[in-house]
């Protein structure tokens, strides 16, 4: 495979006006959309105009003057990057005069640039070099010593890229990329003329600055001034494979640029419809875990968890797994084992795990980590709209006029989407943030929320109902939409309920702590401000009332007619890369793929016919119920693929007790994670770089994951599941994940049109993709709701039973930060630790002062479930009475603190509300030390004995 860069058309596509323009470029007639630049027009028609300061990720700037052209009938030489095309225009891009002018410009640049091309990291991949060649530069009349920026120290503080000011040509592409693409505004050009230079946040190094290491500036830089360390180390790439990020639910696509078998860099793919050429620090840079020394590459087994691991052959590990599961079933019954699918694995792998359980284990004891994040989304949206998914694509946000963000922190959790949202906000859309914390979105450069509703954790339903109260009592609802699209009687019941005085903003103010006026204003804005779009995250779902909150959100959207077109909708921001896909693939214990209940005879018969066995019509156990059943002695074996329930699930003591009560726990993962401390079999997993498959992002977009290197552990994850299945006698014969997708398509109506050849041709498809929607479905519920009439559901506010009191006066809420991902198993094994070496407890200065605590002090955090120790971060981001932490580090084990309370409908744990007390401490608790000791013991691997 040969290597070529993606074509850079110099300026972004014009904003569509529907009109087109015809002109002549170098004798060729060209017709293109109005507003296109001459530079882009030349590029699109196969030509190329030299350029330095223009790149198609940012608006043109017109500073380098290299892109001059001649336009008939116009004086001078306009810059082609800033001049739009016009009807009848006649442009010449290559004339002797232009060549001379361009050479002159180039000479000036080169005279201020070190000529160490042969030893430069970007040699062969440098636009300055290319353009010097393109303009035919042979000599520099000014000499090479005008170089004021030469010899300046490099900034190597960022762990992933270097900044070398001596190579900077001050084109400001990086500054504009940071402003326009990323929206962080971390870079400026300081000084004038030859003295001007790029600077990160008033002279600090990149690492200490506002920079979030998204890489947009590095990608925009035409020289080696901003360059990936890895390129300097390994050399420039020689081949590229397009694949999908395995971190978050945005689903950015990347070109994995390789040199031989070594990954050099991940470059966001411009044609990626989810990310449009942008990325965040995780997908762009944090993939080093794939080669980390902690990766386990050989299967291992042990008889009990206090023994060291013993490395065995794949054959032995697989045979042992199958025989243990069969032994347990023979002794304790068919329903005594189950499994957990992974939202990090591919659709195909997830489908196979649930197939293994339904077909091979003969029960429905399958669940997935979506249980602990978005299961209420599944329940709530299927009740109200009829399908368990977000209604829009990401592009839709560019048509939104009012954006309501509830319980989500997209700049940290979904950064690439956040950049897009911020771009829309800078264009003038209004923002409402409903969140106990003052997240970055509330106020950041050039973005400020119109309303921030800092409600007390656990009062979402009361707040949303109060907004509904305003909309109904002030008659701001969209009657025509409701009459046409929803059941009017149900609306009337709901309207009657929300109109009751007890649900007014004034009445609930003491509960939520948010001023009634602010709630009224926010409700009016959402209802009347044009296209209203709701984006929400785990701050909605991870509550006792998670499902009610999702339904309350759906009610608001229906009442205001904000469903069924671009710019509006209800959008869950999915946590993990394939959490949407894992849910779609039948990972829940009550549903087959495509959200069809196991008790539905027709669906079950379809699967029975395909798989040749009778299937269980009774729902299986959910994760917390599995753990209960384990402590009760009725559930004895668990297959866990790519999940770390001990660290990520609530009430660690409960999880540990459940796991400890099982006779065979099989963990398939990259690393010996915390759950593996309780495992009897460890099957080494493969990374997303080592396998083929698909992920489905939060927009329901199915995208290819492509193998770029051979699996270090010897097998892709889907192959390992197939080995287990066949050892259990299932006789599977898949040679490639494409065949698994064909099976999914044959058995799942919403996926009927999804096949690998379609994905190759289209790049991606958004389900439903079938005969009714051959090209997929970017926006759902356009002509009617999936369930027929939209259903208004009365959502009473039932407060959580987790109550603050004298012993536990503070409310703990949990979340994540940009540089880490979930339990951190991957990101902790990358240089991302430079930004977040430990979990900290955020607390308000007044709460800290009351307890005599200072920033950085060790504190004990105690709840009814347990206690742990970590260091305090005193900040006004959290309101008095509220404390906040992340759960990225096993040393902290924030889930020792969280309780067993959960969403009433789905058992999604209530991570976001725990009553706690905080007090001074001297260091890690006894429990933490004991745990660390046990973890160390449990990870021992016996040295390999001489070959058997």
């Amino acid at each position: 495979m040969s290597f070529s860069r993606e074509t850079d058309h110099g300026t972004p596509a014009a904003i569509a006006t529907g009109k087109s323009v015809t002109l002549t470029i170098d004798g060729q007639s060209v017709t293109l959309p109005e507003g296109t630049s001459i530079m882009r027009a030349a590029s699109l028609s196969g030509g190329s105009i030299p350029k330095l300061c223009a790149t198609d990720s940012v608006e043109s700037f017109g500073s380098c003057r290299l892109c001059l052209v001649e336009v008939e009938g116009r004086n001078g030489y306009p810059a082609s990057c800033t001049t739009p095309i016009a009807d009848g225009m006649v442009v010449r891009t290559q004339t002797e005069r232009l060549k001379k002018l361009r050479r002159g410009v180039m000479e000036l640049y080169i005279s201020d640039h070190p000529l160490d091309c042969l030893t430069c990291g970007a040699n062969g991949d440098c636009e300055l070099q290319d353009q010097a060649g393109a303009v035919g530069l042979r000599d520099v009349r000014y000499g090479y010593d005008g170089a004021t920026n030469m010899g300046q120290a490099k900034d190597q503080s960022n762990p992933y890229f270097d900044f070398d000011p001596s190579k900077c040509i001050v084109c400001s592409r990086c500054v504009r990329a940071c402003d326009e693409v990323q929206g962080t505004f971390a870079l400026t050009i300081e000084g004038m003329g030859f003295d001007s230079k790029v600077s990160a946040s008033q002279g600090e190094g990149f690492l200490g600055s506002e920079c979030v290491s998204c890489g947009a500036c590095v990608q925009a830089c035409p020289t080696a001034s901003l360059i990936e360390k890895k390129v300097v180390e390994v050399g420039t790439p020689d081949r590229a494979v397009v694949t999908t990020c395995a971190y978050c639910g945005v689903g950015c696509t990347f070109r994995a640029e390789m040199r031989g078998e070594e990954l050099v860099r991940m470059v966001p793919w411009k044609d990626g419809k989810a990310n449009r050429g942008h990325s965040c620090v995780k997908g762009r840079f944090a993939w080093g875990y794939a080669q980390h020394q902690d990766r386990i590459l050989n299967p291992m087994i042990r008889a009990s968890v206090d023994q060291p691991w013993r490395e065995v052959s794949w054959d032995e590990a697989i045979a042992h797994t199958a025989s243990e599961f069969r032994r347990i079933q023979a002794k304790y019954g068919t329903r005594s084992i189950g499994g957990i699918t992974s939202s990090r694995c591919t659709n195909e792998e997830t489908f196979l795990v649930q197939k293994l359980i339904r077909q091979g284990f003969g029960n429905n004891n399958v669940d997935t980590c979506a249980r602990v994040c978005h299961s209420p989304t599944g329940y709530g949206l299927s009740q109200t709209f009829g399908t368990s998914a977000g209604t829009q694509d990401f592009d839709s946000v560019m048509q939104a006029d009012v954006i309501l963000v509830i319980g989500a922190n997209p700049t940290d959790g979904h950064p690439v989407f956040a950049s897009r949202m911020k771009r829309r906000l800078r264009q003038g859309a209004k923002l409402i943030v409903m969140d106990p914390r003052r997240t970055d979105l509330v106020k950041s450069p050039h973005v400020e929320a119109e309303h921030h509703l800092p409600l007390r954790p656990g009062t979402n339903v009361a707040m949303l109902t109060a907004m509904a109260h305003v909309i109904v009592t002030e008659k701001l609802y969209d009657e025509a939409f409701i009459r046409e699209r929803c059941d009017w009687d149900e609306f009337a019941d709901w309207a009657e309920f929300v109109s009751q005085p007890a649900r007014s903003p004034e009445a609930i103010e003491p509960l939520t702590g948010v001023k009634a006026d602010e709630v009224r204003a926010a409700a009016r804005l959402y209802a009347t401000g044009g296209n209203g779009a709701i984006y929400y995250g785990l701050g909605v779902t991870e509550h006792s009332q998670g499902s009610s909150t999702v339904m309350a959100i759906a009610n608001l959207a229906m009442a205001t007619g904000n469903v069924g077109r671009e710019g509006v909708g209800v959008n869950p921001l999915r946590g993990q890369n394939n959490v949407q896909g894992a849910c779609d693939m039948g990972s829940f214990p009550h549903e087959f793929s495509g959200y069809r209940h196991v008790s539905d005879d027709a669906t079950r018969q379809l699967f029975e016919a395909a798989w040749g066995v009778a299937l269980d019509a009774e729902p299986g156990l959910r994760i917390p119920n599995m753990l209960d059943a384990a402590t009760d002695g009725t559930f004895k074996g668990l297959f866990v693929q790519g999940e770390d329930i001990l660290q990520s699930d609530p009430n660690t003591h409960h999880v540990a007790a459940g796991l400890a009560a099982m006779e065979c726990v099989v963990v398939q993962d990259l690393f010996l994670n915390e759950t593996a401390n309780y495992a009897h079999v460890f099957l080494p997993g493969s990374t997303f770089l080592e396998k083929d498959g698909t992920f489905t992002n939060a927009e329901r977009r199915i995208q290819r994951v492509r193998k770029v290197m051979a699996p270090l552990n010897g097998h892709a994850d889907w192959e390992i599941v197939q080995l287990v299945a066949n050892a259990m006698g299932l006789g599977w014969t898949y040679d490639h994940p494409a065949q698994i997708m064909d099976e999914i398509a044959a058995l799942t109506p919403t996926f009927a049109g999804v096949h690998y050849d379609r994905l190759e041709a289209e790049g991606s498809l958004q389900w439903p993709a079938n005969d009714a929607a051959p090209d997929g479905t970017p926006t759902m519920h356009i002509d009617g709701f999936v369930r027929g009439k939209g259903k208004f559901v009365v959502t009473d506010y039932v407060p959580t039973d987790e109550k603050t009191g004298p012993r536990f006066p503070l409310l703990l809420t949990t979340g994540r930060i940009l540089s880490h991902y979930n339990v951190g198993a991957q990101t902790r094994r990358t240089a991302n630790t430079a930004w977040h070496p430990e979990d900290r407890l955020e607390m308000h200065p007044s709460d800290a002062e009351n307890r005599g605590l200072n920033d950085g002090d060790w504190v004990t955090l105690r709840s009814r479930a347990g206690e742990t120790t970590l260091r305090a971060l005193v900040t006004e981001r959290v309101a008095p009475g509220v404390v906040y932490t992340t759960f990225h580090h096993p040393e902290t084990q924030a889930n020792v603190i969280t309780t067993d309370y959960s969403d009433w409908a789905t058992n999604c744990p209530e991570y976001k509300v725990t009553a706690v007390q905080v007090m001074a401490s001297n260091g890690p608790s006894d429990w933490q030390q004991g745990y660390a000791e046990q973890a160390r013991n449990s990870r021992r691997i016996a040295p390999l004995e001489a070959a058997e």
Partner: protein
Amino acid sequence: MSDDTSVMSTRDRLVYMAHQIARNLATMGEEKAVAALAEHLTRFWDPRMKAQIVAIALNQPDRLSPSVAAAVARMAQGKPAPDVDATQFNAVDETGHCDAG
């Protein structure tokens, strides 16, 4: 319910869950709420959870509110679970295990 959630037994938890669901459905009015709760238990609870709550209704009826009791009775009368080794989980240590408090 106990002050210390970390020691909640399965039986306590099922009783708690059933009442939690009932509280969230209560605005529907008694009749609809009972039907909705029965349907919820039928569609989302695994057979051993169903068996446990039925056993509680039988042996400790005062632990269930009238509407939860009505819903459990209704659920129990519904379509019986097809017996694909369904209740074998009890085979080893019999019912005592499930009710271990």
